[in-house]
C-alpha cells in the first residue's frame, strides 16, 4: 500500500476543506462585521399583531359590591369590498355566534353606494373618489351587530381564521383525493414495482403543482382580506349599576379619542373625570396586551413562535363606602331636597374611629350612566368642594379649644347679655337670634342654645394665635387629605389678610379679609370658609377622643381576583385636644341635642351629641336675613361614637322657619342615623348592660 500517497491526498483534501472553512469564516466576518445587511431585504416575513384589550378596573364598596363596572363590547363592522363573493359564506358562518339570522347579516354586508358631495361615490366599504385610484375608508352604516361581548368577538375571529372556505375546501379535497389515488395505485402495484410507483408519484406531483399554489394564494392573500373584511370596533362601556347612587364620589369616565389607527382592536381610552374615577385613573386603567405572531410564506408560525403578552386589567378600587348606608343617605337627601327646596343639600357619614367615609351624597346630582358631561351644578361634589362660612357648628372648635386650654368649665356661668353685646374695643356688635336670647347661663347651656355672645366671649379668652392653632389642628384652613378630589379655600392669615378665592359656581363676596373684627367673627363660625367635610372631620375628632383622623374613602386597591395590591390604612393626623376635654365636649354636645337647638336629632335608642348651625349668607355684600346656610353635625352613640353624620343645606326654604339647622338638617340626620344604626346593628346606648331601660321616656323598648 502506498501510504504516503494516501497521506498526501488526505492532507490535500483536508487543506481543501480548510480553505472552504476559511471562505466561510471570511464570509462571516464580511456579513457580521463589515457590510451590514439592509433590513428591507429581510422584510418578507409578515408580522401579525392582535391587540388584547384590558378592562378598566371596577369600583367596589366596602363589602365588595360593585359600584362601577366595565365591559368590553364590540360593534362588528364589515367591508363588503373585501368580503366580495364570500359574503354569504361569512354570514352563514357568523350568524349563530351573533344570533342574528344569516340573511339579515348578508343583507347588511351587501355592497351599496351613493353619491356624496363633490360627485364622490361612497360605498359602505370604502369611499371611492372620482379618480378611482384613491380609496378612502369610511365607516358608515355597516355595523352588523352592536354591543357584542368582547369574548364573543374573539370566537367570531377564531372561527373566521379557522374556517376553510368552500374553494379552499374543494382544493383540500382534491389534494386528499390525489394522495389517496397515489396510495391506492402504489398498494395495488406493490411498492417494489418501480415503474408503476414512479408514474403514480409523477401523477401526484403534477396534480399537487396545480393545487398547492392556488391553495397557498387562498390561504395568504385572499383569506387575509376576507378575515380583515370583518372587523371589530371595540368599546368599553362603563356601567354604574346603582345609577346616581354616590355619583359624586365615583365620578364618571368619558371616552377619549383613538389617535392610532393600529389600535383599531382596542377600545378608545376611558378617561376618568371627577371623584374616584379621576383620582385613581392611573390605577383603574389596565395595560393592553398584544399577541404577535409571524407568518412565513403560507405557513402560520403561531404555535411555535408567538409572543403573547396578556392584557392586565386595571385594579379594582375598594371604597370604604357602604352601598346600604349610601342608599339611606340618598333616600334622606331625596326627601329633604323635595321638602326643604334648598339650592343644594349634602350629607356625609363617617366612622370617627377610622375616619372611614361610609356614605357621601349631594343634591342636585346626576346619572353617570348617561355618558354625557353633567351640568356643573349637578356634577359638583359640594361636601368636598364648596367651602362656605360654617356658622354655629364651628362653635364646637371654639368650646373644645377653650376647654382644652382650661379657660372654661362646662358648669361655669357666663353672661350672654340677652343676646346683644358690643365687643369691647371694637365697633362690633354681636347679636343672637331672637329664638335664644339668654341671660347668665352655664357654658353648657350657652353652647346648647347656641349663644353667639357666649361663643365669642369664650373664643376671646384665648389669644388669636392660640385660636388659629386650634383651627388648624382641627383641620380647618387645610386639606383634609381625602383621596377623592377636594377643594378648600386657601387662606393666608400670616400676611394679615384673609384671602378667599372663588369656589366653584359660588360667589363668596362680602368677606374683606383679616381685619379687627375677624377675631370676634371666627368663634361663631364667620370670617372664613370651611367645607362640610372639614366640619365633619373636626367633629369626628371630638367623637374619637380628641384625635383627628384623615378621612379615608379608599380602603384598598385589588386585582380582579381579589388579591390586595395596596391597602390604605386609617391614619391618625394628630391629637387635637386632651381626652378629658373631648369627654367634656361630648357632654355639652349631648346637651345641645337633648336640651338645646338640636332636639329633632334626638333618637329613642341612642344618645346623640351634636350641634346645629344656621349661618347667614352674604347677599349683595351684606349678611342676608333671608338666605341661610343650615347645617347639623352630630354623632352617636355619644358614649362610644360609631357614626358621625354631617348634613348641610344651602338656602333651605324660609317657610315655617325651617331654615334653622335644627329644623332643616337635624331631621335628615335623624333619618339617616336611625336607618344606619339599625343596619349596622349598633348597640342601643340607652339600655344598660343588663338590658334595663335607662331612659324612661323610651317606653317602646322592651328588655330582651
Amino acid at each position: 500500500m502506498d501510504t504516503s500517497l494516501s497521506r498526501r491526498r488526505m492532507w490535500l483534501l483536508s487543506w481543501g476543506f480548510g480553505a472552504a472553512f476559511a471562505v466561510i469564516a471570511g464570509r462571516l466576518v464580511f456579513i457580521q462585521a463589515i457590510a451590514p445587511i439592509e433590513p428591507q431585504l429581510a422584510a418578507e416575513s409578515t408580522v401579525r399583531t392582535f391587540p388584547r384589550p384590558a378592562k378598566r378596573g371596577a369600583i367596589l364598596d366596602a363589602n365588595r359590591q360593585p359600584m362601577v363596572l366595565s365591559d368590553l363590547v364590540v360593534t362588528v363592522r364589515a367591508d363588503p369590498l373585501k368580503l366580495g363573493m364570500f359574503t354569504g359564506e361569512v354570514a352563514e358562518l357568523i350568524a349563530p355566534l351573533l344570533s342574528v339570522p344569516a340573511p339579515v347579516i348578508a343583507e347588511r354586508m351587501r355592497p351599496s353606494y351613493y353619491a356624496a358631495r363633490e360627485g364622490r361615490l361612497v360605498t359602505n366599504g370604502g369611499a371611492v373618489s372620482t379618480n378611482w385610484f384613491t380609496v378612502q375608508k369610511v365607516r358608515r352604516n355597516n355595523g352588523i351587530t352592536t354591543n357584542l361581548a368582547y369574548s364573543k368577538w374573539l370566537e367570531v375571529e377564531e372561527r373566521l381564521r379557522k374556517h376553510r372556505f368552500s374553494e379552499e375546501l374543494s382544493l383540500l379535497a382534491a389534494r386528499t383525493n390525489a394522495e389517496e389515488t397515489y396510495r391506492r395505485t402504489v398498494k395495488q402495484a406493490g411498492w417494489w414495482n418501480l415503474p408503476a410507483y414512479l408514474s403514480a408519484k409523477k401523477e401526484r406531483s403534477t396534480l399537487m403543482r396545480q393545487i398547492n399554489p392556488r391553495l397557498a394564494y387562498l390561504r395568504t392573500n385572499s383569506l387575509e382580506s376576507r378575515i380583515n373584511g370583518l372587523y371589530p370596533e371595540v368599546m368599553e362601556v362603563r356601567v354604574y349599576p346603582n345609577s346616581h347612587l354616590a355619583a359624586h364620589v365615583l365620578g364618571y369616565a368619558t371616552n377619549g379619542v383613538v389617535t392610532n389607527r393600529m389600535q383599531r382592536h382596542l377600545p378608545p381610552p376611558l378617561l376618568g373625570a371627577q371623584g374616584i374615577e379621576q383620582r385613581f385613573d392611573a390605577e383603574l386603567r389596565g395595560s393592553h396586551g398584544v399577541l404577535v405572531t409571524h407568518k412565513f410564506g403560507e405557513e402560520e408560525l403561531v404555535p411555535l413562535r408567538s409572543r403573547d403578552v396578556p392584557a392586565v386589567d386595571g385594579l379594582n378600587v375598594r371604597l370604604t363606602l357602604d352601598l346600604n348606608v349610601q342608599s339611606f343617605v340618598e333616600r334622606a337627601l331625596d326627601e329633604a331636597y323635595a321638602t326643604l327646596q334648598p339650592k343644594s343639600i349634602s350629607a356625609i357619614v363617617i366612622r370617627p374611629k377610622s375616619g372611614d367615609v361610609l356614605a357621601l351624597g349631594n343634591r342636585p346630582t346626576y346619572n353617570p350612566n348617561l355618558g354625557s358631561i353633567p351640568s356643573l351644578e349637578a356634577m359638583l361634589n359640594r361636601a368636598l368642594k364648596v367651602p362656605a362660612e360654617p356658622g354655629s357648628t364651628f362653635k364646637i372648635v371654639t368650646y373644645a379649644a377653650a376647654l382644652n386650654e382650661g379657660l372654661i368649665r362646662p358648669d361655669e356661668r357666663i353672661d350672654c347679655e340677652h343676646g346683644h353685646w358690643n365687643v369691647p374695643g371694637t365697633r362690633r356688635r354681636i347679636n343672637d337670634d331672637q329664638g335664644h336670647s339668654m341671660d347668665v347661663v352655664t357654658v353648657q347651656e350657652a353652647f346648647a342654645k347656641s349663644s353667639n355672645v357666649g361663643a365669642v366671649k369664650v373664643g376671646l379668652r384665648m389669644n388669636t394665635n392660640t385660636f388659629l392653632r386650634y383651627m388648624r389642628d382641627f383641620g380647618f384652613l387645610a386639606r383634609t387629605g381625602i383621596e377623592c378630589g377636594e377643594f378648600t379655600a386657601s387662606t393666608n392669615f400670616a400676611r394679615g389678610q384673609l384671602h378667599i378665592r372663588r369656589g366653584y359656581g359660588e360667589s363668596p363676596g362680602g368677606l374683606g379679609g383679616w381685619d379687627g373684627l375677624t377675631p370676634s367673627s371666627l368663634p361663631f363660625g364667620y370670617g372664613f370658609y370651611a367645607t362640610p367635610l372639614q366640619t365633619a372631620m373636626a367633629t369626628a375628632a371630638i367623637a374619637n377622643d380628641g384625635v383627628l383622623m384623615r378621612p379615608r374613602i379608599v380602603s384598598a386597591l385589588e386585582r380582579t381576583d381579589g388579591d390586595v395590591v395596596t391597602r390604605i390604612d386609617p391614619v391618625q393626623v394628630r391629637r387635637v385636644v386632651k381626652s378629658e376635654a373631648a369627654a367634656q365636649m361630648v357632654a355639652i354636645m349631648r346637651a345641645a341635642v337633648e336640651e338645646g337647638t338640636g332636639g329633632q336629632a334626638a333618637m329613642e335608642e341612642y344618645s346623640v351629641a351634636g350641634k346645629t348651625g344656621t349661618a347667614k349668607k352674604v347677599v349683595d355684600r351684606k349678611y342676608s336675613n333671608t338666605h341661610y346656610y343650615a347645617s347639623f353635625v352630630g354623632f352617636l352613640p355619644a358614649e362610644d361614637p360609631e357614626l358621625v353624620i354631617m348634613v348641610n343645606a344651602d338656602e333651605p326654604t324660609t317657610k315655617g322657619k325651617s331654615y334653622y339647622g335644627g329644623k332643616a338638617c337635624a331631621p335628615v340626620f335623624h333619618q339617616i342615623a336611625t336607618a344606619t344604626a339599625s343596619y349596622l346593628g349598633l348597640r342601643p346606648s340607652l339600655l344598660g348592660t343588663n338590658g334595663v331601660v335607662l331612659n324612661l321616656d323610651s317606653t317602646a323598648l322592651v328588655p330582651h
Partner: protein
Amino acid sequence: MNRISTVLLLAVGSLLVLSLTMLASATMLRDNSTWVIRQAVACGVGFVVFSLVALVDLKWVHRFTWYVYGGTAFALLLTLSPLGSRRLGAQRWLFGTQPSEIAKIALVLSLAWFAARYRHRLTSFVTGVLGFGAVAGPLLALILLEPDKGTTVLLGGVMLGVLLVAGGRWSHATFLALIGAAGMALTIFKSGYAMDRINAFVKPEANRDSAAQLNQSLYAFSEGGLDGKGLGRGSLKFKVPEQHTDFIFPVIGEELGLMATLGVVAAFVVILLCGASIAHRAEDPFHVFLAAGITFVIAGQACFNMGVVTGLLPNKGIALPFISRGGTGVVVMMALVGLLVNLSRQAVSVEPAARRGKANPFEDADTDLSQ
C-alpha cells in the same frame, strides 16, 4: 487518552454544549422544554454509543462492516415503504429515527473496507469506478428517493474523497462527479420545490418566498454583529421555520455574534485537523480510509450547512453536525467521533515507542496490529 483525542473531544464537547444552549434559546417561546430534554437524552444515548464504539476492538468493527451496511440498506428500504413516515414533503423517518443519518456510518465503513481490501486495484476503472459505485450506489439511491438530496450530495462527495485518498485516479473521480452532477441536475429540474430553492439562490428578487429564509438568515448574522444581541434575545427564531435544525447557525450568529460563529468554524477546523492527523498516524489502510471518511463526513456536512446559511451555497436542508437538533444526527455524529477516538488509540500507542526507539514494557500487548 492521547493528545489528539483530548483536543478532538474538547472541540466536540464545546459544540454539544453550545447545541443545547442554542436549542433552549431557539425554542424558549414554546411553553415547555420537551425539545431540549429530548435532545439532552439523545446526547446521553450518543455518549453511550460513543463509549462503546471508542472501546470496542476495531477488528470487530472491520468484521461487522457489511452487517451494518445491510442493516442500513434494509432500514432505508423500510423508510420508503409505508412503514416510514412523511414530514415536510419527504419520507425520511422510520420509527422516529432517520436511517439516512445512519447511512453515513455504513457508507464510511463499507467504503473503507472496500478500499482497503482492493487498494491495489483501485486505479482500474472496474474497481475504482464500478466497484466504488456498486458499494455506495444503493445507499445513495435509496437516500435520493426519500428525497434527501443534501445528504446524497454530501455522501457522494465523501465517496469521491475516500476514493482519492485510497489512491484512485483523479480522472475516475471527476467522471463519477460528473455523472453525479448530471443525475442531480435531472432530479432537481424534475422536482419543483428544489428548483425553487435553486432559483432563490440565483435570482433572489424573483423568488421572494424561497429567498426569504436565506435573507432572514443573512439579516440575523448582520444584526448579531461582533458580540451578538445576547443569548435568547434574537428575533430570527420568530421569523424562520427550521430555526432549530438547519438554521441554528444564524441564531448563534444573531445571539452570540461573530466571536461565537468564528469559534464554531474554528471548532470544526480543529475536528478536521484532528481527523486528518489520526488518518495520518494510522498504520492500517482500513484505519486510514475510515478516519478519512469520517473526517470528510463531519467537515463536509459542516461546510455544507454553513455555506447554505451564509448564502454561499443553494438552500438545501442539511443539519450542522453536533449543533442542530435531531436525535439520530447527534447519536451518529457521536458514533463517528467514537470511531475516530478508537482509531487514534490504535495509532498513537505504537508511535512514541517507535519514534523513541525504546522498549515499552507493554509493547507486546499494545502493538498487535496484525489484523
